[in-house]
């Protein structure tokens, strides 16, 4: 990161020229601002950052940044990112996902990413709906939310991403609101700097399919308590909160998973010896 120290990067340096296709009013615009702001704050060179995603409105972010990006397939961003980070520990790796991409089809990789604790930052824009496919319920959708696919609601208990993250071993857990780009950026800076797997859930309204979420700005509030490093306590706290508690909720101390790479102890030819009789 010597490059980064030499140059002072501005927020604009992390934005690409590609114009978002998001609906005007979408919370994801704010998230884009928060991410670029956080990167500028940290000062890592744009080319040393990789932003990885799956499929969804939220997953469109990589191309809107001026970093290296990968817009992969639906639900697999965490695995792709883990491969990248393990192979290239020098990079700063962010993963940008949605509640469908991350918690429905991508749920298993979420569990295992938390457990594996590779040093990267997972940002999920939770709008409690599948925006990209025109408004179906996601795992975080309220049980009574009416839609064409689930008339009258799914009747299912919403998925609790923060608790799952804690239960499966994430090393940093936070919730923010897209409508507070400064607050979100601050948390992202901390998340990126925190070693190991950091998970930040950003409540990010979908104005098109969930216009009711415009109300979120009146519902969010800062977590009334200090972050803890006791996962069990943090989990219990979140399991009983109202879902609109913002802030850093957990900071863990587990060492990140990072096998040594790039340092050969033997020549390729030496490996052959085992076969020779």
């Amino acid at each position, binding site marked *: 990161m010597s490059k980064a120290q030499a140059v002072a990067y501005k927020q604009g340096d992390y934005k690409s020229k590609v114009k978002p296709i998001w609906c005007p009013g979408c919370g994801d615009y704010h998230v884009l601002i928060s991410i670029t702001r956080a990167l500028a704050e940290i000062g890592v060179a744009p080319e040393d950052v990789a932003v990885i995603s799956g499929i969804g409105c939220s997953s469109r972010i990589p191309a809107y940044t001026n970093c290296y990006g990968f817009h992969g397939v639906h639900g697999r961003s965490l695995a792709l990112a883990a491969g990248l980070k393990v192979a290239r520990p020098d990079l700063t790796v962010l993963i940008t996902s949605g509640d469908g991409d991350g918690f429905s089809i991508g749920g298993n990789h979420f569990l295992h990413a938390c457990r594996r604790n590779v040093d990267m930052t997972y940002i999920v824009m939770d709008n409690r709906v599948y925006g*990209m496919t025109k408004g179906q319920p996601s795992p975080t959708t309220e049980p009574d939310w009416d839609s064409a696919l689930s008339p009258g609601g799914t009747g299912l208990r919403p998925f609790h991403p923060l608790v799952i993250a804690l239960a499966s071993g994430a090393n940093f857990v936070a919730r923010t609101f897209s409508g507070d780009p400064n607050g979100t950026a*601050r948390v992202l800076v901390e998340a990126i700097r925190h070693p190991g797997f950091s998970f930040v859930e950003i409540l990010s309204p979908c104005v*098109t399919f969930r216009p009711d979420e415009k109300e979120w700005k009146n519902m969010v509030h800062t977590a009334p308590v200090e972050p803890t490093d006791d996962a069990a306590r943090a989990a219990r706290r979140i399991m009983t909160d109202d879902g609109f508690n913002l802030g850093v909720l957990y900071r863990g101390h587990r060492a990140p998973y990072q096998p040594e790479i790039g340092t050969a102890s033997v020549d390729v030819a030496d490996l052959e010896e085992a076969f020779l009789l």
Partner: protein
Amino acid sequence: MTNLTNIGDLLAHAYQIEIEAVERYQMLADQMEVHNNSELEKLFRKLAYHEGQHAEEIRTQMTDANVPELKPGEFRWAGPDSPEAVDLGDIHYMMTPWHALQLALKAEQQAFAFFDEFRRSASDPDIKRLADEFAEEEEEHVAMVLKELEKYPEPDDDWDDDPDPPVSPE
């Protein structure tokens, strides 16, 4: 918020306010371009241009003061965003100039409030004088926007009524 203690700090913040306003208006213009609202695209580009000029004015003032290089997180805003940045959550692709000007108005008012509170709480006379200057400038902007708004009646309730359904690009 108002723990800005010297001129340099104040200038840095004033400049940042305008810069972010420019970026924000440009972003909005882009959104309108992508969503085929050319009237608003033009309007937002114009607003961006004006804020840009304002930023330029401040920048010239910065040359002789000792202005710190602040990182994004080092700016001390009271709200969730810099005061003159339009809230992106309030945007709609079918919005009319009336709406855009309402947003601009709110932004200018917030900027005014920022400097206004500042000038009232500042003790250093130099800072007070500068804050005063900025506040007045914002006040002028507020007046300008209000004047512009007179040209546009408030649109009907169904202004955002899009008969066509959303589509699914992926």
